[in-house]
């Protein structure tokens, strides 16, 4: 009995010290999920995001207070001055360039646990070793779909807290789509509540956007006032993530039905609205009326986009999937 206890103890110690390859990648990702709402920290670093096919950089400061409050400040580059936050009840974002504060109710900084299962079901997560990020030891992990060898995500996780210190996201063609890297991170017990509140002031234009979830397709149809169609085809591995009502950001009364599918890492968004019922904004960069110089997420920046009309309903599908798959989804909505 004593011998058995010593043996088990030895294995545990060996595992903790890294002698045994106990830290399998899936285990690390699960731990990250469990721990994501347990730490409060302030980190600074750089983010890069894809815009018109180019990666634009910005210095950022990210503050997270457990369980679900956060604040992101963009300190340089085209995003300079932008603030994103969540006070635990509402998420908000403020852009000083437009003077617009958008408050979206009830979305937290946390990630639903059920999506983790989907992620691990559809992807291989492999541990490539350990390295140092932001002065801390970090696991280097790679995520690939089970259906291909294409890297979709690399991430570096703190070995002690499982906070993600660095991300690299790749699109379905293997191009780097965005990255964020913390150079410095400080863990703390708490931060002032004020930090997570949206800015106030007479010149700030406040807009509210609802992201109401509805439990069924029938309910969604009642809310938007037309029969909502679901695709007859989605690529293997994708599962229904939910039905929502999507309000137009320009504050017009236009509402769309939003159906979302996810494979745990990537998603397919299908928006449906009555044809001609939208605000029909002529704005939008990259159009003949608008600016060819402005910055708009294009097909290559945030996934493939296809829009079409059928029987009086406008459909917009956004997904980072192969264009042939997108065509199949589209065709399944036309049947």
């Amino acid at each position: 009995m004593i011998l058995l206890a010593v043996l088990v103890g030895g294995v545990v110690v060996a595992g903790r010290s890294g002698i045994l390859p106990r830290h399998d990648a899936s285990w690390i990702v699960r731990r990250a999920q469990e721990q994501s709402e347990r730490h409060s920290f302030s980190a600074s670093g750089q983010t890069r995001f894809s815009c018109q096919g180019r990666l634009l950089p910005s210095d950022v400061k990210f503050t997270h207070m457990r369980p679900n409050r956060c604040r992101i400040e963009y300190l340089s580059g085209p995003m300079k001055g932008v603030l994103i936050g969540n006070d635990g009840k509402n998420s908000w974002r403020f852009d000083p360039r437009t003077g617009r504060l958008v408050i979206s109710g009830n979305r937290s900084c946390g990630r639903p646990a059920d999506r983790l299962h989907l992620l691990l079901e559809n992807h291989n997560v492999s541990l490539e070793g350990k390295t140092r990020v932001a002065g801390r030891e970090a696991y280097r992990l790679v995520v690939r779909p089970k259906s291909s060898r294409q890297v979709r995500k690399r991430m570096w996780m703190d070995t002690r807290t499982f906070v993600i210190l660095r991300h690299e996201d790749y699109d379905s063609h293997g191009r780097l789509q965005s990255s964020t890297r913390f150079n410095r991170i400080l863990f703390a017990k708490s931060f002032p509540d004020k930090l997570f509140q949206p800015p106030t002031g007479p010149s700030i234009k406040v807009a509210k956007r609802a992201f109401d979830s509805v439990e069924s397709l029938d309910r969604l149809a009642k809310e938007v006032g037309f029969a909502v169609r679901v695709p007859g085809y989605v690529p293997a591995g994708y599962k229904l993530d939910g039905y929502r009502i999507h309000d137009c950001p320009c504050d017009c009364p236009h509402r769309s039905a939003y159906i979302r599918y996810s494979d745990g890492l990537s998603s397919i968004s299908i928006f449906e609205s009555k044809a001609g019922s939208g605000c029909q904004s002529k704005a939008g960069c990259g159009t003949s009326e608008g600016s060819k110089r402005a910055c708009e997420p294009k097909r290559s920046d945030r996934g493939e986009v296809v829009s079409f009309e059928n029987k009086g309903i406008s459909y917009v599908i956004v997904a980072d999937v192969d264009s042939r798959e997108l065509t199949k989804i589209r065709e399944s909505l036309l049947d």
Partner: protein
Amino acid sequence: MNCCKVRNRIADYAVGLLSGRAKADIESHLAECPECQAEYRLQEQVMLMIEEVDSLEPPVGLWNGVHNRISATPVHPSVWKQLKEGHYRRRARWSVGFATIALTALILHSTTSIQHPTAGPEALEYVQGHAIYASQDVLADQTALYSATVMAERTHTLEGETL
């Protein structure tokens, strides 16, 4: 520092994020490498577009300038040219014509690649919505995803006000 390394860091350099040796290395490389210089200029142009999103008109005289430069393309003189001046002059005209067509095709291609036929202006809000929800996914890089969202929203709002 080689071209690959410079191009990986040129975006940082363009917005003044680099200092010290990294900055000096890139500057010395740019002084010698016309290809990286061109990349840097392109990067600066992109940054300028974003900074001045409401300034939509191309510079006055741009197209005339392009046309003039094409028309002024020198044709290398040769003995044969002297002997067959008329023939080469015709060929030079053809060359200029082809160059004009090629340039026009290039401009049209770049314009139409921005105007993706399926991603019209009304799709912008949906792409933005897609990114917002993606930020809630497991392991999502919220910082980068929100950047794309805000840039899309900024464009939508500023251009909406302009038009």
